[in-house]
């Protein structure tokens, strides 16, 4: 029996610990602790599946979140995004410090740096095949190539999908055609076959998940917000795109639990924050520290909630499951037009602006935080448009430079000071 990287077994312990911490209240009161408990349980299930695959020497697919994982699941292929476990477990390991010691460019996104360092450090299992995504940023493409220079990763068969620039049917079809090639590639290199009926069932399950996610977002739009800062975006993003085995009814149940819990709280008028004063849009992905390290301070000090982020912006269309072609088309649309971040970063600034505009209106937002993440070079070039939009909407905008995956780049205390000054300028006082 092969041995998985030690780190995977450690992740399993982290998630078991999380389950233990949330077990009691989960049974007792349900609600948010129960969702957290389930989130840990499904993450553990993902890790265990990875460990089992490596131990049994079965094919393992490396993917990135714009790849449509429904395809792997329909081929019964275990898949993972190489950074998806490094990020949520960051507080338990010294990954960021080790990453800093590596020679990856300090001015690039920590997610990419962690992915390259992680492969070099041997904490990421070596995949059988790599399916790469060349969007939404330049660094992703190079990250995939950098892996080829890591001992043990040199000759892994790789296919990377080229994203078009536009949003129309012709663009989606170009991507769908590549998905077809990806299936051929996977069949050739893993020996697993595509099961189109299974893909149909999975896509239907994905449709259900997305519908529940929509319900959750509808609840987040209400005052007071039923969940804590960025929680829903974090859970949804994690379960739908990272630790999800598409088609797993347990994941659908998880989204249902989120939707029901949120609806129940909204109905009772209960907010996650007792005295909600300010509603914030975090105009980027959550990253790895905003939710847990900034959110509680905002809530306790100002009654301010980061209601949602781009990670939770999920206007998914229903995948038409009538034919293999229609499914691939629907999956391609999801992969390039709808998945968070790729949605905002690919192509022109229009979707980014429309999302900010719609979210400010729908979520009853009082101000926008734009973290100017150092990996998002495209969004750096959006700043002028964003300022114009916020002026037009008379929406206060706070911009600061950060690395949303590296809390040492802009220390949290420094950010708190920046926010305090900004809030003061708006006339928003601390609660006490």
């Amino acid at each position, binding site marked *: 029996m092969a041995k998985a990287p030690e780190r995977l077994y450690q992740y399993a312990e982290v998630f078991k610990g999380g389950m233990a911490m949330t077990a009691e209240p989960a049974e007792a009161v349900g609600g948010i602790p129960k969702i957290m408990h389930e989130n840990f349980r499904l993450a553990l299930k993902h890790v265990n599946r990875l460990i089992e695959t490596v131990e049994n020497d079965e094919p393992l697919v490396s993917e990135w979140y714009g790849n449509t994982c429904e395809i792997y699941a329909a081929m019964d292929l275990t898949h993972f995004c190489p950074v998806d476990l490094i990020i949520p477990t960051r507080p338990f390991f010294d990954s960021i410090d080790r990453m800093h010691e590596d020679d990856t460019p300090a001015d690039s996104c920590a997610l*990419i740096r962690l992915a390259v360092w992680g492969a070099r450090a041997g904490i990421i299992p070596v995949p059988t095949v790599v399916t790469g995504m060349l969007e939404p940023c330049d660094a992703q493409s190079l990250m995939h190539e950098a892996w080829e220079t890591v001992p043990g990763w040199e000759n892994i068969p790789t296919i990377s999908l080229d*994203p078009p620039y536009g949003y129309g049917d012709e663009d989606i079809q170009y991507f769908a055609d590549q998905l077809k090639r990806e299936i051929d590639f996977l069949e050739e290199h893993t020996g697993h076959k595509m099961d189109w009926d299974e893909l149909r069932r999975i896509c239907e399950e994905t449709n259900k998940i997305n519908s529940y996610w929509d319900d959750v977002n509808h609840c987040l739009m209400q005052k007071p917000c039923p969940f804590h800062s960025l929680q829903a975006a974090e859970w949804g993003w994690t379960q739908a795109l990272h630790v999800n085995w598409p088609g797993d009814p347990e994941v659908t149940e998880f989204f249902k639990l989120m939707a029901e819990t949120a609806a129940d709280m909204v109905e009772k008028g209960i907010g996650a924050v007792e005295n909600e004063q300010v509603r914030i849009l975090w105009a980027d992905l959550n990253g790895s520290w905003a939710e847990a390290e900034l959110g509680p301070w905002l809530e306790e000090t100002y009654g301010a909630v980061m209601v949602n982020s781009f990670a939770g912006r999920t206007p998914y269309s229903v995948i038409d499951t009538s034919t293999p072609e229609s499914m691939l088309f629907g999956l391609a649309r999801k992969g390039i037009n709808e998945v968070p971040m790729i949605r905002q970063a690919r192509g022109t600034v229009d979707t980014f602006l429309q999302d900010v505009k719609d979210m400010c209106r729908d979520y009853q937002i009082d101000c926008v935080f734009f973290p100017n993440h150092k990996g998002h*070079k*495209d969004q750096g070039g959006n700043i002028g448009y964003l300022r114009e939009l916020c002026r037009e909407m008379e929406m206060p905008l706070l911009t600061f430079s950060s690395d949303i995956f590296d809390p040492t780049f802009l220390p949290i205390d420094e950010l708190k000071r920046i926010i305090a000054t900004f809030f003061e300028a708006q006339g928003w006082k601390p609660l006490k």
Partner: protein
Amino acid sequence: MDKAMRVREICDSFRELCSVPYNESLQSYKNDGGLIIGVLYNQVPEEILTAAGILPVRIRAVGSQGTEASDARFTQVNCSLVKHFYDSAAKGRFDFIDGLVATNGCDHVRKLHENWTSVLKPAYSHLLCFPKRQGDDLQVTQLAKEIKKLKESIEAHFGVEITDEALREAIKLHNRTRELQCALYELRKGENPPITGAQMLAVMMAGTCMPREAYNAQLEELVALCQDVEGISDYKVRVVVYGGEIDSIDFFEAIESQGALIVADSLGGYGKRSADMQISLEGDLYTNLANAYLMERPAEPRLHGTRAARWEYLEKVAEEANADGFIQVFIPICDLWGYERVMFATEVEKKDLNCLVLDTEYIFTASGQTRTRVQAFVESITEGGR
């Protein structure tokens, strides 16, 4: 006139042309009623513009004094190149162009194009979406479609027709440029190269900022002369420069001032990679253009799946030029070249190559520091360091 003197004279005149965005040659072309389109980066198939009777001119913010105008449109996460380009555009330094064509060459450049188009409103603007990977027929077909869209857009805006015949002639003209440039590269492989790396950079850049027929004629003469001059012998080591859109002659001079003669390069913007292809005249010309730009031209880091080929090319260039070492150059905050540096470091280590990594902002000012580092590098080679 002495041949060596004439070589210097031609190189100096090329350098002069490259020293300002709107040079004398472009001014007289415009005065004669010519149309100019500014081109962002080297993936735009300029043959299409030539076939339309429009002069493609590569945008360079040479002589840029600052980036203040960019501050409202870009942030700290954007590279100095796009900031200087935008600043120069906002200050009217490119007002002579009749339009702008760009590709999504990187995240910064596509945003440069977008901001330039929507804020500064050039009379014409087009973005050609270039595939991000070298691939198969899907990518070639996709790019051919994009090139046709560019053609149609030019035709509609400028009221011209781009016939196959005109395109064929344009391809021939550009092929000739590339052929002559390659011939000059060939001559620099010898023990006593006829011109320096800094001069060669001027030669390459001049081809992007003057009418092509006139350029080819001068290049023709230069190649003939270079076959017959004594060449440079007072150097200490022979180096190959590796990088992207480097366009600073001063930077090259700073390197060469320390006895490191640049005998070859793998540069995409104004270097050998841009010249090292010939476009076929057989069959569908749009497919040929797509095939050449995507599949045949030596690739850049921006084209996924080309890592091994990039280094093979670099090694071949170095070997043919009998180089002693590499100087890798990049602009900070550039993920494409930043990661290429990291990856190439593994190759350098594995093969025990002599390699110096230099970063430079788009406007080169760190002359003293560069000289010191190159001097140390040269010493490490000549004293048998590695």
